[in-house]
């Protein structure tokens, strides 16, 4: 800004300043108060003591004595109880499996969408988005019907004898019983999160300059080589975005494991839910949440970095 203060300059500063401050401040404050703030509260409550229906204050003043009571029992419990550890591992395991499956199914899908005739692409995009707009809860519920004994998909799988294969892989508990198994859980999660993988991949692949592939062919590369050496590396940003959009929320998924999962597919979202709603143990639930946040901090940072880079590059 100019060194010499003038009335005209002053007016400009006021014009710009007030607008700018408001625009940034409103959403910023909202997020600070309602998004970031709560995490600190969760941290605080995880070390508080539970009392009847609600939690005790950390700092109490009675009879001239200031007491700070921090109860780390919950964290101790989590660290020592094998059930919690197993559940966290399960969550990462199933989230990872879902991500890989989504990538395996979704990448070719996005690829062929991006290579389709340009007049057809908007229609394809709409068809992919349409299920996303209809309630995911209802669609997951529908899978119950499809996978229970007698359901369409169950009939097909059993009829083809594939259930024996799934049984031998340990993905289902008994031949013919497809529901409430790791199989049904991962299937349900893959189904729900597939659009989250397809969309960033499609958006990335559609923007790719096809002339690069022409140049590669001109230099002697087969389509297969060109795909692995050019297309895939260039779509790295899309792969990362899609993977993070699937992996991170899957870890804490609650609804799908609840409707499609079984006793041996216990995930951390369910644990948190039970601690809060069934046991009414708020500190416990908070500690579970804190550990979950720590679990996803690294993937979250990766996702954040990708988002920032993507918006800067435009």
């Amino acid at each position, binding site marked *: 800004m100019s060194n010499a203060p003038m009335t005209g300059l002053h007016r400009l500063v006021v014009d710009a300043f007030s*607008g700018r401050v408001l625009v940034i401040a409103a*959403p910023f404050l909202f*997020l600070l108060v309602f998004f970031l703030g709560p995490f600190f509260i969760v941290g605080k409550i995880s070390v508080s003591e539970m009392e009847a229906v609600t939690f005790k204050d950390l700092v109490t003043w009675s009879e001239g004595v200031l007491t700070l009571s921090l109860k780390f029992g919950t964290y101790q419990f989590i660290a020592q109880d094998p059930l919690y550890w197993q559940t966290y591992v399960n969550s990462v395991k199933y989230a990872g499996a879902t991500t890989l499956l989504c990538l395996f199914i979704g990448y070719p899908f996005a690829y062929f969408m991006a290579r389709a005739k340009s007049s057809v692409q908007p229609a394809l995009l709409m068809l992919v988005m349409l299920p996303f707009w209809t*309630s995911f809860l209802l669609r997951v519920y529908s899978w*119950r019907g499809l996978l229970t004994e007698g359901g369409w998909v169950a009939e097909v799988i059993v009829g083809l004898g594939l259930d024996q294969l799934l049984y031998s892989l340990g993905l289902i508990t008994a031949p013919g019983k497809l529901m409430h198994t790791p199989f049904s859980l991962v299937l349900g999660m893959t189904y729900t999160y597939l659009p989250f993988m397809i969309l960033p991949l499609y958006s990335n692949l559609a923007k790719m300059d096809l002339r690069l592939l022409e140049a590669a062919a001109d230099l002697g590369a087969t389509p297969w080589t060109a795909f692995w050496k050019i297309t895939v590396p260039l779509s790295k940003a899309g792969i990362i975005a899609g993977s993070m959009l699937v992996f991170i929320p899957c870890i*804490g998924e609650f609804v799908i494991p609840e409707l499609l999962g079984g006793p041996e597919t216990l995930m951390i979202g369910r644990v*948190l839910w039970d601690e*809060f709603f069934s046991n009414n143990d708020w500190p416990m639930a908070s500690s579970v*949440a804190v550990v*979950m946040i720590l679990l996803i901090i690294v993937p979250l940072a990766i996702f954040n970095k990708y988002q920032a880079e993507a918006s800067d590059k435009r």
Partner: protein
Amino acid sequence: MKAASFNRWFGRGWLAAGFVFLYLPIVALIIFSFNDSPIPNVWRGFTLKWYEALIRDQEMLSGLWLSLQIALLTACGSVVLGTLAAFALVKYKRFKGRTLFSGMVSAPLVMPEVVVGLSLLLMLVSVQRALGFPERGLFTIWLGHLLLGMAYATVVVQARLQDLNPQLEEAAMDLGAKPHQVFWLVTLPMIGQSLISAWLLTFTLSLDDVVLSAFLSGPGSTTMPLVIFSRARLGLNPSVNAIATVIVIVVAVGVVLASYLIARAERRRQQEMASATRA
């Protein structure tokens, strides 16, 4: 070339299989909503009784009404906050705390809802203990949905805003428009479509949300997804199929209609351009 045609058919096959996978549950939902059987799994016969029951289903209908109200409020609030956030991120490249801001805006997109729901609830309870309000209910659910909706709205609006030619706004200022006039007369008309997209998107998300609503609702404020969820947990329930079909039809009609209208406007514009150049 044989390789190219194999590629093409493989591609079409994969896309077709993918779409079958995506739409199978939806189709099944609809078909079994007409199934004359308490267990909507095996076909017994055609009936409309589940729809008749739906009309009398107080629990579901009041849940629907609440969800619609919250969704409406969420959509409006998300668009406002999301547009502000998008502006902040696109127009002002450098300000204190930008990285933090950017992180906070996009985090709800991926953060597991149980974590967001729990933390927000605990904070609201703390506030309630200190100040006496807010009670858990419509307002608290709305706050949670706003958090999520704002993240999505920001993504949508930011994408459009970034593509905007900055010289347009400069031209407006050069011609005498003050900053707020620039926004209303030039920027807003140009991002209008993305605002509508963001509105519809956040409306849908709010209508569909289970976990946040579960944590943040209070007695007497049960949203429709919560009603569906509690019934679905217990087992297969044909009333769910019925409401599902209604929702799917409404949404499908809406999306197809919107796509058609957009395509038609686009085609008309092309025609106008073609006739203009010939003139």
